[in-house]
């Protein structure tokens, strides 16, 4: 069981960052939904509830998701349901039950770079950016490749555009973690094909995306893109599936996701 020695609820992000930096055993609290599964000993737990980071805002040219926004907020948000074929609400709606989604937060999932995440995969497909207090604003792709650092993720931003997107996942049971997930997005024939829960964290299939972006949407080309995704990414084995099984399923899910996006009508 985890323990918390001291809890602080800073009023400003600067204060939160100072406390985080000052204490080696300090830690930012997210939704804490998985906390009880571990045995962490937290010296100073920093709760961001008072920083107003739980909103999802539609700005002029982007959608901003606060780090403390819950999965349920993502699932039910009208703007996120309107854009990108509602890919983000659809992706998080698979995560356990509504009670859990009322706890788990966007910031904790993204900052922790969970391999099994249902959210990171479509965020990567949508070419999202993240904002960190120390690290500043950067593409999610770049953030995921960086080594872990003590920082505070404050927001996730997605450009508002006509991007069409789709999400596919394979689970052993409804509320289990995904064996594999795939998100695909297309903006003006620039495709992004992302595969997650490999089980390592989600990654862009660059060659497969490039193949689709050539503009040939024939069944053969889709098949080739799906094959490229399966070949260029690495897959691992865990209790939910073998690497070979995931590779085989990658082809299937990419094909389904691409086909689904091609069938979408422009907004």
């Amino acid at each position, binding site marked *: 069981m*985890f*323990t*918390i*020695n*001291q*809890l602080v*609820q800073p009023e400003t992000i600067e204060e939160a960052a100072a406390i985080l930096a000052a204490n080696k055993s300090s830690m930012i*609290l997210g939704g*804490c*939904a*998985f*906390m*009880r*599964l571990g045995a962490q000993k*937290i010296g100073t*737990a920093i*709760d961001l*509830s008072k920083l107003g980071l739980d909103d999802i805002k539609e700005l002029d040219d982007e959608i901003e998701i606060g780090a403390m926004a819950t999965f*349920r907020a993502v699932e039910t948000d009208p703007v996120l349901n309107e854009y990108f074929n509602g890919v983000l609400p659809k992706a998080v*709606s698979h995560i*356990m*039950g*509504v*009670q*859990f989604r*009322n*706890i788990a937060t966007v910031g904790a999932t993204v900052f922790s770079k969970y391999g099994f995440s249902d959210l990171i995969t479509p965020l990567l497909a949508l070419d999202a950016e993240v904002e960190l207090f120390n690290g500043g604003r950067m593409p999610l792709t770049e953030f995921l490749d960086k080594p872990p650092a003590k920082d505070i993720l404050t927001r996730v931003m997605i450009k508002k555009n006509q991007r069409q997107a789709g999400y596919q996942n394979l689970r052993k049971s*409804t*509320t289990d973690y995904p064996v594999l997930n795939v998100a695909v997005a297309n903006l003006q024939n620039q495709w992004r094909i992302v595969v997650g829960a490999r089980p390592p964290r989600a990654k862009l299939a660059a060659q497969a995306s490039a193949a689709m972006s050539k503009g040939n949407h024939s069944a053969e080309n889709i098949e080739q893109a799906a094959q490229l995704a399966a070949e260029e990414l690495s897959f691992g084995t865990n209790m939910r599936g073998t690497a070979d099984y995931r590779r085989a399923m990658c082809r299937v899910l990419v094909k389904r996701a691409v086909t689904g996006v091609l069938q979408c009508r422009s907004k």
Partner: protein
Amino acid sequence: MQIEVTINNKKTTLEIEPDELLADTLRAQGLLSIRQACDTSGCGLCTVWIDGQPTLSCSTLSFRVHGKNVTTIEGVPEEAEAFARVLAAEGADQCGFCSPGFIMTVLAMKNELPNPSEAEIKHYLTGNLCRCTGYMGQMRAIKKYLGGE
């Protein structure tokens, strides 16, 4: 540390530990309908409402309900009994261990979704596990309850 919280419409001040979980806090207040079962945030037996939203009390740190309204099944006795009677009539209660959390989720769904389809009902209730019933009786009960039968 101290928190002020309204539990079942009664405002109260509680002394809690920073790492205390809401399920433990509520049970210490004598609210024994809160079941602690799966330990993995997956079964829904500990479901309570926080400001009307169904939430896992086993995975919510107690300090997070400061200034909020927490409702357990003890706080909605009439609505709970009305649905529980339909559950029992459909043979869907069996051991009854999951019933408090399940009933709280069904009541939350009733408040949130006006006329849920069968698919919406199933989706809303995926976080509530029951080892006895196989869910068929529960589905019959929900449909009858929502249909006002």
